[in-house]
């Protein structure tokens, strides 16, 4: 029976849909879980209860209800908007966010799409999402959106650099850009023990900024820009952007866990559950940061990236290189 299943799975045309379905399932569940977590964790951190009604038990179905609501909403395209770009922007943001999930090693031999440059694939895909944001910003024909877009562009350029440099430090340490290999070369404690812990913080901060999550949410700063590039979006398109955001949290958490925290490895019984636990823990930290820190000012944001994170990540690259060349184990 198991052998038969294995044989069946060896067939490419059987395996492919299975992989696609699995990735889609992950894509559709984890962001929702994180979204719900954000509702609840943030509420409790503010001494509130958060959603309590939908789904009877502590509002577990709140996001499903939200989804149903979004579907029913009218989809409005502003008159002055560039219709095609406006309509395409959510897709451009969403599709790379889905694809990222295909390259993450979920367990030993559980990599939907294995690539020996998996690290760069994920980075490349998340940088494509940015284009979607810029398209949305410009095509809305709205000053607030445009300003949000400008901020987003400036911020994403600034934080892309430390992000890639920190990831490169890991690739250097592991001697591979293949995410599966990177996980295999780590102990279950990951790279967090050693100089790469700095890389973890740099990567985490930069990823937070890439996701334009608070405290780096200048591009959507609701107190000054209404909702940045999302101002003119309604209904399903808006929901897609939200989904992209939560999928981004999950995928960045997964990449960070893979790069620095030992991925699917754990103290006992290695497997996808460890990755899931780490992803949820990191998502919690993302939400925690959101409910703790106020938004940075634009100039603070820029100077923090260029004057702090970039030099630190360059120095880290140097240190890791030296340790690697002179074979000082980490």
């Amino acid at each position: 029976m198991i052998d038969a299943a294995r044989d069946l799975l060896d067939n490419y045309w059987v395996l492919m849909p299975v992989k696609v379905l699995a990735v889609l399932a992950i894509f559709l569940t984890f962001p929702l879980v994180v979204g719900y977590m954000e509702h609840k964790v943030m509420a409790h951190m503010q001494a509130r209860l958060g959603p309590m009604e939908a789904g009877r038990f502590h509002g577990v179905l709140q996001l499903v209800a939200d989804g149903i609501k979004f579907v029913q909403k009218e989809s409005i395209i502003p008159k002055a908007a560039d219709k095609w770009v406006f309509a395409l922007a959510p897709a451009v943001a969403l599709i790379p966010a889905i694809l990222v999930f295909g390259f993450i090693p979920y367990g030993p031999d559980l990599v939907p799409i294995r690539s020996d440059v998996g690290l760069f694939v994920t980075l490349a895909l998340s940088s494509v999402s940015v284009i979607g944001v810029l398209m949305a910003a410009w095509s809305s024909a709205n000053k607030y959106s445009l300003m949000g877009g400008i901020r987003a562009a400036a911020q994403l350029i600034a934080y892309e650099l430390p992000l890639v440099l920190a990831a490169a430090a890991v690739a250097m340490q592991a001697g591979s850009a293949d995410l599966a290999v990177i996980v295999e070369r780590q102990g279950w404690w990951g790279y967090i023990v050693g100089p790469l812990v700095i890389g973890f913080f740099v990567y985490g901060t930069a990823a937070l900024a890439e996701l334009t999550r608070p405290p780096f949410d200048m591009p959507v700063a609701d107190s000054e820009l209404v909702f940045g590039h999302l101002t003119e979006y309604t209904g399903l398109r808006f929901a897609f952007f939200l989904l992209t955001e939560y999928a981004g949290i999950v995928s960045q958490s997964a990449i960070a866990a893979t790069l620095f925290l030992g991925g699917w490895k754990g103290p006992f019984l290695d497997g996808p559950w460890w990755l899931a636990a780490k992803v949820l823990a990191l998502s919690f930290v993302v939400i925690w940061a959101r409910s703790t820190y106020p938004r940075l000012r634009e100039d603070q944001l820029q100077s923090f990236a260029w004057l702090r994170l970039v030099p630190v990540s360059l120095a880290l690259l140097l240190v890791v290189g030296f340790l690697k060349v002179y074979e000082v184990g980490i």
Partner: protein
Amino acid sequence: MPALKGVGLLKGLGVTLKTMTRPAATRQYPHVKPDLPARSRGVIALIEENCTVCMLCARECPDWCIYIDSHKEQVAPKEGGRARTRNLLDRFAIDFALCMYCGICVEVCPFDALHWSPEFEYAEHQIEKLTHEMDTLRTWAYSVPAPDPLEEGAIEPKEIESARKAREAVAAKAAAAAEQARAAAPPVPAPAAAATQPAAATTTGAAAGTATTTPTAAAPTPVAGDAAPAASAGAAGAGTTTAAARPADVEVEPGIDQATYDRLLAAGESDRTARAKAKAAYMRRAKAEARAAQAAGATEPAPAPAAPAEAAAPTQVPAGEGAPAAEPASVETPAAATAAPETAPPAPSAVGTPEGAEPAADARDPDARSPEGDPTASGTAAEVVAPGAAAAQADAEHLEIEVDQETYDRLIEAGEPERTARAKAKAAYARKLRAAQRDGGGAGS
């Protein structure tokens, strides 16, 4: 100072994490009713019987949102003299869409016809429906909480005072009768005491024991059972003199009488009302106990008096206080019945009361009744002895209202909203109850 900055960031994280582990401040409103303070300004209730159509409220209302219509009526003179005219209320409505809840109308009404009720869930989809007419305003009256107990040492309200006087008169008569009986049969004092005071016999055996012997000795004061301390002090007269004295001031920690609370909740009272009443009950009892303890400490060391306060015959409590003169009255009148309902609510309603009907309501809701917070339940006595108009009204105001199920079902079926149906059903119930009382009262007297 980068190091310090970092510490601040961590501290911030600590604050949010700590908040997360603490219970939330959220109130689950529609599921959990808000815990409103007793004097909340929810809606204005009208007790139309009290209203004399003086128009003060309508004139003082800053929003001019009270509408009153009335007509004059000639009342035939009782005995001679000319006919009097009097105003009869035709319409009384408050437009809550305009009302700003300033409370001036409630303050200004000289006849206690307007009251604040804490009900607040009367939002409507149509603004005209926010104009509450007389019948709606009347239903709100059923949720008006009982007035706070009077302060210790406050002057009694008139009706209660007159009730007390009447009660004393009855007591004196009863005492005289007992005297005569005793005089007629001096050799058997014990049964006489038992006859006049069955309650006393049930309490402390020792007290009862002394009681049987003392009456003949201390003839002038008829209250044998209470005389135990007096007798041991050898000064029965002292007992009579202290009778008029006000109960000693006692301080009591606030608390809640669980039994009352549970019972009221079971009876369908709102949580807030039940709590308030339970608190009142607790305070009354606790004060009585404390007073009894004081008195006991002053006169004799016997620890007996504390127990009776909780027992079914609380008439003993003031006895321990050394206020015997007034007591016999409460022995004959169903004082026990008024105090007892805390444990067994509906049963004693019929206990030997001449006016039967009023105390029936009374027994169901003792807490709302005795505004002084005095366990001798002079309020009941007032009802029994002198059911004056004012007292009767006060009584109606505090009827324990239940929902008339029939009306309720009918209205719900007719598509009325739940709240309206409940209110109207309540009104229907109250009407029936009052009618029943009137009939019962008529039959009794």
